[in-house]
Every structure is written in structure tokens, then in C-alpha cells.
């Protein structure tokens, strides 16, 4: 295997860090300059990340050791297919979110904009770091940075509701961090290494009960951000954050970091063999299947649009983890691909919620009747993305669901196929009334009947993400080889078997 030593992955992290401080020191008074930094940083970051892609597609790895921390563990970045995939997703979506954010905070004349953009950039830095981490410790370092940097964004509104949401978020995520740390230290004490390896590295160490305990500690730790029930409570509460935060962080960076961590644990720490041997995969699959169904039902009951989206997020995150837990090549491919496809679709949905809020100050689904006539582009994008989440072709959600379904059959677990299909039904049940009502019902108060869209700064990003969702559905590898990366990652994991 080709391993290239290059400073590029670290440069990507540094660029964002530098950008964040430029944003901080530019401050409120020169806000156009400040926004320029955000956009510029996101573009540089993205091109840096993209420039890494060819090597990865050739099957190589890119490695950079920052500093040796202790015997066998270094602060080290290593880009592999899976990390590349997540890195591309986070950095790509950051560009769109930056434009959208600017439209959003200016549209609402938010306070504390500098703090907002600064913390946003730090979060992205952490997400990129998580994507490129070579071992569990490095991942943990960035994971904790992400936890802390998200907090100011959750409490951004500084209402008592937001403060409570922030506290709850901290209690959940910091406790989770501690649990992960404990498990990581235990694994290190047992194996002397924490380096991710396709197919896992703990095989042959520890007793089966120790391994079982460690597996559940790690999954519980990462499962908090991945919002696996019963650890999901913080996510709907954290929806008090401004919408772009919910969009990028709660649909892509933060929760996906949790999912990413879960997948790293399942596929790169424990690996198929150990999980099969101990039958852990089945337990995890059942837990996540439970989450998939129950969160879908919860979503039905929500009237607040963002809360409904939050529960839909929980639903999809668990689908991803469930796919990985099945540990068959197709299921893993589908699961990894769904990280991206769900990212594009869900960010569109959140963008729409934000656009509606900025334009009409409406947050509840029951007030949205007829809004499709006022904001046809926005609601059109919503319709596309919602259909995609439900798994309708030709939107990209279909591809991931198809592979996940294949994976269920491969694993000879027909139950999970039914779970997937039921979840798709639930998706339709909680999204389609919104689409129908917004286009065909008699408008409610405050909805005008002529074309009156949100600012272009917001409409363009959300249209773009909707279009990308469709393009990805038709040509899954057209954009940055998303599908190729996912299947390459799966091949490597199962190649070792």
C-alpha cells in the first residue's frame, strides 16, 4: 500500500484554525472583511481536501505525524477512504453553509456574529481533524474540541431555553467524552496501540467479556453524538440553536462525527471478525433498529419543523449505524454512502426551515399551509430532499437505502429489511403532509400568495444542495467520487477478512 507523508492534512486543519482567529480578530466592525475570511477559508480548505482525493482513490494513504505523545500513540493524521469521504462532505458543505449563514444572521440581525462565525470555523476544524485522525486518541482530541466549540453555538440565543439546551448538551457530550476516554485508555493499556486499522486491531487481546464491555462503552460514548436512543435527548433540545448551526452541525458535522466515531469503532477498532465472534453486531443492530422506528414515530408527533427534522436526523443516523453493524460489504458501502447522501438531503431540509423562519418567522408545521406558493423554490427543494430521505429514486437516498437493503439480505437478517422499509414509510408519513399542505392547502395568516422568496444568499445554497442530492442519486460517483470512496472503504475493511 502506498503511504505518502505529507503535511497537507495538517495544513487543512491549520488553515481553518487560522481562519477562525482571523474572523475573531477582525470583529464586528469590519464584518464584510470577516465574512470574506469565512468564505476564503472554506474555499481554501475545500481545495486542499480535494487535492488529496486522487491519492486516496489510487488506494494510497496520506499520513502526517504531528508529535509522538507516548509509546505507540502519536498525534497523527492519516487520510484513508473513509476519512476522505467525511472530510470532503464537511468541507464541501461548509462553503454552502457559509453563504447561507451570512444570509441568515444578517437577515435576522443576530447578535454575537463574530462569536458565531468563530465557533463555526472551530467546529469545522474539529470535524476535519476527526475525519483525518489516524488513531483513537487523535480522534478524541478533535472530538472534544468539537464538543466545546459547539456549546456557544447551541446557546447562541441566550434565552433560558437555549441555556438549558446548552447545559443538557454539555452534560450528555462531556459525559460521553469521559466514557470514550476511559475505554480508549483501557484499550491502549491492553493492546499498546490505538491506530485505526481496516478490519480492527483488538483481535487477540483481552477476554471476551472485556471486549464486550469496551465495545459498548465506546458505542455508548460515540452514540451520544450519533443520538442513538436512549442517548438522543440532547439533540431535539439543541435545536434551539440558529438554523445554520442545526443545518451544518446537527445534520453534518457534530452528529456525523458521532456516527463517524461509531463506524470507526465498529469497523476499524473491533472489526468484523471480533464482532461476529462475540455476536455484538446483532445486539447493536437491534438497538439501532429500535431507534430507527421509534424516532420515526416521534417525528410524526412534532409540530415544530426543526424538531421534526431533528427526529428524522436521529432516525437516519441510526440507519447508518445499523448498516455498519450488519458488517457485510454492501451494508457498509450503503452506510458510508448514506453519511453523505443524508448530509446533502438533511442540510437542504434545515436550510428550508431557516429560510422560512427568516422570511416569515414561522417555526411550526401547522402554520405552513400554502407557503409553497409564496416560496416555491424553497419548498420545491424541500420536496426533493424529503423524497430523498424517504428513499425515492432518483434522489441519492435511494442509492444508500438500496445498498443497505442488499446488506440486510447479505447478513440474512430480514428483520432489518423490514425496519428499513417501515422507516421509509414513516418518512413519507411525516414529510408528505408538509409538502402537500404547503402547496395545496388554503394559505394561513401571514402567508402571501405571490412569489416572495427568502434572500438569494439562502435560496441559492439550498437549491444547490437539492440539486446535488439528485445528481448524486443519478451518478453516485459524479461528485468527488463519493460512491467510489465508500465502496473502496468497504473493500478494504472486508479485504482483510
Amino acid at each position, binding site marked *: 500500500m502506498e503511504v505518502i507523508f505529507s503535511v497537507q492534512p495538517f495544513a487543512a486543519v491549520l488553515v481553518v484554525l487560522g481562519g477562525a482567529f482571523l474572523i475573531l480578530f477582525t470583529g464586528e466592525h469590519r464584518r464584510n472583511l470577516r465574512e470574506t475570511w469565512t468564505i476564503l477559508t472554506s474555499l481554501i480548505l475545500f481545495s486542499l481536501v480535494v487535492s488529496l482525493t486522487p491519492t486516496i482513490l489510487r488506494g494510497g494513504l496520506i499520513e502526517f505525524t504531528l*508529535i509522538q505523545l507516548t509509546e505507540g500513540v502519536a498525534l497523527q493524521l492519516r487520510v484513508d477512504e473513509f476519512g476522505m469521504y467525511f472530510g470532503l462532505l464537511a468541507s464541501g458543505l461548509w462553503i454552502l453553509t457559509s453563504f447561507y449563514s451570512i444570509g441568515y444572521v444578517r437577515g435576522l440581525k443576530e447578535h454575537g456574529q463574530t462569536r458565531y462565525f468563530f465557533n463555526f470555523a472551530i467546529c469545522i476544524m474539529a470535524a476535519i481533524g476527526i475525519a483525518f485522525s489516524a488513531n483513537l486518541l487523535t480522534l478524541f482530541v478533535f472530538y472534544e474540541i468539537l464538543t*466545546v466549540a459547539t456549546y456557544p453555538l447551541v446557546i447562541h*440565543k441566550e434565552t433560558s431555553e437555549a441555556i438549558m439546551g446548552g447545559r443538557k448538551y454539555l452534560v450528555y457530550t462531556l459525559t460521553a467524552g469521559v466514557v470514550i*476516554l476511559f475505554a480508549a485508555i483501557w484499550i*491502549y493499556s491492553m493492546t499498546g496501540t490505538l491506530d485505526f486499522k481496516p478490519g480492527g486491531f483488538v483481535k487477540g487481546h483481552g477476554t471476551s467479556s472485556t471486549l464486550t464491555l469496551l465495545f459498548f462503552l465506546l458505542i455508548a460514548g460515540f452514540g451520544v453524538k450519533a443520538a442513538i436512543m436512549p442517548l438522543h435527548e440532547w439533540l431535539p433540545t439543541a435545536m434551539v440553536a440558529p438554523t445554520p448551526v442545526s443545518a451544518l452541525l446537527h445534520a453534518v458535522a457534530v452528529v456525523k462525527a458521532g456516527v463517524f466515531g461509531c463506524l470507526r469503532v465498529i469497523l476499524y477498532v473491533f472489526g468484523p471478525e471480533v464482532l461476529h465472534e462475540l455476536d455484538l453486531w446483532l445486539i447493536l443492530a437491534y438497538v439501532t433498529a429500535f431507534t430507527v422506528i421509534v424516532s420515526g414515530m416521534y417525528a410524526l408527533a412534532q409540530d415544530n419543523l426543526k424538531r421534526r427534522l431533528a427526529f428524522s436526523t436521529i432516525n437516519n443516523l441510526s440507519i447508518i449505524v445499523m448498516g455498519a453493524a450488519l458488517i457485510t460489504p454492501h451494508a457498509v458501502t450503503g452506510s458510508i454512502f448514506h453519511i453523505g447522501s443524508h448530509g446533502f438531503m438533511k442540510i437542504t431540509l434545515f436550510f428550508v426551515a431557516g429560510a422560512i423562519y427568516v422570511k416569515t418567522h414561522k417555526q411550526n408545521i401547522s402554520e405552513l399551509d400554502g407557503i409553497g406558493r409564496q416560496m416555491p423554490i424553497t419548498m420545491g427543494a424541500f420536496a426533493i430532499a424529503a423524497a430523498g430521505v424517504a428513499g425515492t429514486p432518483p434522489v441519492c437516498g435511494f442509492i444508500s437505502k438500496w445498498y443497505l437493503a442488499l446488506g440486510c439480505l447479505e447478513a440474512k437478517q430480514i428483520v432489518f429489511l423490514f425496519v428499513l422499509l417501515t422507516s421509509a414509510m414513516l418518512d413519507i408519513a411525516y414529510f408528505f403532509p408538509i409538502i402537500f399542505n404547503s402547496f395545496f392547502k388554503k394559505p394561513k395568516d401571514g402567508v402571501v400568495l405571490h412569489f416572495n422568496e427568502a434572500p438569494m444568499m439562502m435560496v441559492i445554497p439550498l437549491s444547490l444542495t437539492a440539486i446535488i442530492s439528485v445528481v448524486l442519486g443519478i451518478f453516485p460517483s459524479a461528485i468527488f467520487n463519493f460512491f467510489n470512496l465508500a465502496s473502496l472503504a468497504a473493500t478494504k475493511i472486508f479485504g482483510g477478512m
Partner: protein
Amino acid sequence: MMVEQSPALIVVVPLMCALITPIIGLVKKEWCYYWVLLTLLAATVFSVVTMGRVLSEGTIRYFLGNWDPPYGIEYVIDHLNAMMLVIISGISFLVAFHSKESVADEMPGRIVFFYTIFLLQVTGFIGIVITGDVFNLYVFLEIASLAGYALVAIGEDGAPLASFRYIILGTVGACFYLLGVGYLYMVTGSLNMLDLAQLLPELYHSKVILVAFAFFMVGVAVKMALFPLHVWLPDAYTKAPSSSSALLAPLMTKVAAYVMIRIMFTIFEPCFSMEMLPVTAVLSWAAVIAIIAGAVMALAQRDLKRMLVYILVSEVGYIALGVGLANRNGLTGSILHILNDACMMMTLFLIVGAIVYKTRTRTIADFRFLHRKMPLTMAALVVAGLSVIGIPPTCGFFSKWYLILGAVDAKQWIFAVVLLLSSLLNAVLFFRVIEYAYLEPRAEDDHGHEEEGVIIRIEEAPVTMLLPIFAGVAGIFLFGIYSGKIISTIIQYAVPTCF
């Protein structure tokens, strides 16, 4: 020449300069500040030079007045106390740098006395760590303690009483130590540490030795404020002036912890310390209680400085726990935590000094809008807080990593869980402060549109205060990121080879 004499100069220069300080104060009392800075800068340079020599040549033995040991006093500098010397001189330099406005503000009539005692205090600390003689150590311990009592007593209302309590307990602790020294001398006829280390193993079954060891441990535990012998600390450090507590809080407990490590692993053999008496078990459990009790007591405080003081009690527990685990990773974590905690505590106490100087309050509930008034100081507080919580890549995380690793290696699950739990307690403590300082509660649906709300002008602390604070912040990050380097070049030689 200077390089060769540097071990002696580290002690002699601050001592002599302390005596000259009043004379300078007679001429012009503002000059004392610069004089102290200059002295401590010199001490720092000597420490760094000595450290460099230790790194390249190994242990340095310096015979004071050319008297051969064990008759004369010997200074022995190995990796452990070379590191301690740099910590002590570096931190006291930064605290002195910070003290200019604070001292003039809090005790305008006593500037000269303060700086004189300040230097004596530093001399005491340096002497304790540099000496290779148990009785000489006692002498320096008393210098440090007496200076400490004085530094506490010049504080706010109630400080003299707090200082008096400190004197009583501190003296009891010192007496225990002195009795231990006496017993050892009685049996072996020697006071030199290396000599003792050679003489003692044959006598390990003597009851006198066991009693001496127990006395040592109790005496040092009082000085390092290990729970339940910490009772003198909260009042003394809260009521002391800002600059005094910024000097004492990071260093006194760490120096005592150093003495404990010296006694357990240099004077006595590690196997003796671990097997003859259940010292490590007692130490670990006391530490565990200290960690939890300190954090819980801190939760009950409304005063930021008092909260920090209780956190200090908890941090001392970390160091003691690492020693008590008595394995390689545990002790590594412990020594690393001496460095990290000194850095964090210095930063935090300096921040309190800056806040008091600017706002005249330490009550956490009065911190509203402080992030607009003192944005840099508050940013530093957040970083230091995150480090105490143990969020990577700050240094607090890495010492915690080794301590937990040590606990897991020793299969002491309870200790590992307590360490993790204390992270969460610290998170509650610091995020409470952060919430007060950063958040401006708003009504529902009010976006607090820009430019609205209370207009607060920036009133940042003076540069002399900000520079040391940010030196501390830089230390928090650098010691974190380079912890691997620090361990591989220094700490791994400080840990006894038998582990």
C-alpha cells in the same frame, strides 16, 4: 565558571537579593519591582542552564563549600528537581511580573516588605528542591513556610487569623518532618539523601525507620494539603493578597509533592515505600477523597478564588493518586501533573488577580458582562478552565491520560472512575463561571439585535497582568502538545527505574 556554580547561584542569588531589597526600597520603593524581576529572571536563567546541564551530563552533584558529603551539604540535581527548579523560577518570575499594579493596589504601604518576603519565599522553594540533605531541606522548608505565613497575613480582613491557623498546622507538619529526620539520624548517623539511601536498606525492619517514614509522610501531607490535612489551605489562600496566592497556590503544594516523591522513591527504596507500610493504599484513598471532596466543596463556593482553592485541594489529590498508584504511568502522570497543574493554577490565580484589580469583586454572580469588559482575561479563563476539566489538547488532559492509564494498569477501576468523574465535576464548576461571564440572558424571541443591550466599554487589565496570563495560556497548550517530548526527555528519567 558561572555554569559550574549555577546550582549554588540559583539559591544564593534570590537569598542575597532578598536581603538587598529593603535597601533598594529605602531609595525608591517602585524600584523593588524591577529588582525582583531582575533577580527572578537571573534565577530562571540559572535554572534553565542547570536543566540543560542535567539533560546533557546527567545528575549534577554540587558540594557546598567543597565539603565532601556526607559531612557537608550537597546539592543534587537530577531530572526531577531540574524540572522543579525551572517550574519554580519560571512561575515566580511570571507572578512577580504580574504583581506590579496588584501589589500597589492591594497593599500600597507594604510594597517593600512584600517583595522582600516574596524573594525569601522563592528562595525557600528553590532550596527545598535543590538540596540533597534532609536537614537542609527542613531549613528551607521553614524559610518557605515562614515567608508563606507572612505573605498570607498581609491579606484582607481575616488574613491574620487564617495565617495563624496555617502557622499552627504548618508547624505541626514541619515538626513531624523534623522528628522523622531526627529518627533517621539517630539510626544511621547521616543526613545526606544518597548516603541514607545506601544505609537504610539494611535497617528496613527497624521500627524506628518505620516510624520515621510515617512521620515524614504525615508532615509532607500537611504541607501539600492532602485531604484531610488540607484545612489550613482554603482560608489562607483565599484571604492572601492576589499576588501571594498566585505564588503560593501553584508552588507550595507542588514543592511538598516533590518532597513526598523524593522521600518515597529516593531516600527510601520504592519497594520499601510500597510494601512495608500500606502507604500507597492510604495515599491513594486519601487522594480519591481529596479529588471528590475538593470538587464538591468547590461547587458550594460563590467566590471564584475560594472555588479555585478547593479545586487546588482536588488537584493535589491527582498528584497524590499518581504517587499512590506506584506504577510507571501513574507516577509519570503525577510528575507531569506537577508541571501542568502549576501552570494552570498560576494562570487561574493570575486571572483572579486581574479581575479583582479591575472589578473589585470575586463573586461569580457579579461577573455579568465581564466578557465584554475583559475579553482577553475571560478567554484565558476559558482555556485554563478547559485544561482543569481535561479537554485536549490542553495540558490537563495529558496528565489525566497518564493517571487514568496508571489506574487501569493497576486494575484500580475505582480510581479511574473517580478521575473521570472529577472531570465532569470540574466541567460543572467552570461552565458555571463561563455562563455567568459570557451569557446575557434574553427574553424569548428576542434576538438581542446587534448594538442593543447594555453598552460596556472594554476595560482590560494592564499589559503587565495580561502578559503573564497569556504566558500561562501558552504553557497550557505547549505543555499539552509537547507532553510526549517532556516525558521522553525529562520525566522518564525521574521515574525510578524499578517500575
